[in-house]
């Protein structure tokens, strides 16, 4: 196979890193199959590449479709989001990092908070006090027993906030990939 075409496929493969290996292999194989068929029809490598568009745009189209159609949160999806906005340009450089980082951080602290509540309570039961963990408003300090439900409540609020930020991230990407996809 022509070197320029090979390079093209390598770039696609690289841009699609966040996808599962089996999916990536399948995508590259399908594009390669079309390239070979076009070549067979006497179309030059340069024309083939012009037809397919830049590898970046093509990879972005695959990533955009994957992100906006799968639901929920997962590491693979997170890395697809990161890969997408690294390809998405300036708008993506400002809005998406903010919303996605807030989303992840809030969700993480939302999980952490009740865990600390449990640890403090557990420590209290075996007779160890942990004043560095807890809640303090003016002269009021929550005891280990009161802090436990409070920590769950705060955890839920934080996690929900994070989830909203995450949803906002997905929504923005969806809007961007639709906006860019001018089917002309």
């Amino acid at each position, binding site marked *: 196979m022509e070197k320029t075409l090979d390079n093209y496929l390598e770039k696609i493969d690289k841009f699609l890193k966040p996808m599962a290996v089996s999916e990536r292999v399948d995508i590259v194989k399908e594009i*390669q199959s079309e390239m*070979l068929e076009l070549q067979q029809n006497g179309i030059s490598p340069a024309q083939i590449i012009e037809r397919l568009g830049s590898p970046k745009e093509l990879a972005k189209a*695959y990533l955009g479709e994957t992100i906006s159609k799968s639901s929920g949160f997962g590491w693979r999806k997170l890395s697809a989001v990161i890969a997408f906005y690294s390809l998405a340009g300036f708008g993506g450089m400002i809005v998406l990092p903010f919303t996605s980082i807030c989303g992840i951080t809030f969700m993480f602290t939302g999980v952490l908070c009740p865990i600390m509540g449990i640890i403090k309570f557990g420590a209290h039961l075996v007779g160890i006090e942990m004043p560095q963990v807890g809640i303090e408003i003016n002269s009021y300090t929550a005891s280990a027993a009161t802090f436990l439900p409070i920590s769950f409540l705060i955890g839920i609020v934080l996690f929900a906030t994070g989830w909203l930020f995450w949803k906002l991230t997905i929504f923005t990407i969806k809007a961007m990939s639709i906006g860019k996809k001018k*089917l002309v």
Partner: protein
Amino acid sequence: MNIDDWKSQIKRGTLEFCILLLIRKQPTYGYELISTLENYPIMAAKENTIYPLLRRLLKEDFISSSWQESSEGLPPRKYYAITDKGLEYLSAMSAEWDNLINTINEMKGE
């Protein structure tokens, strides 16, 4: 007057319908599908639209895919075929399509 924006919106909304109709006729591979669509300028779409769309239809189980060897030196091709779920979806789409056409005809006073 710019009609292109409106045309591209129509295409966005109906491309999926057209692709499923073509795949229902007979199992088809990606490039063949794109070439067929090229014959209909209102529905012509590039690789970066069709391939991701096919992937989504696959994920949603409206179509299935299989790699098949082709003759004389040509590379294997990934063929897409419609599933039962796809047929069901397609008939629901067809009903809505007829509904739309009737509505528009009525409004046009025909």
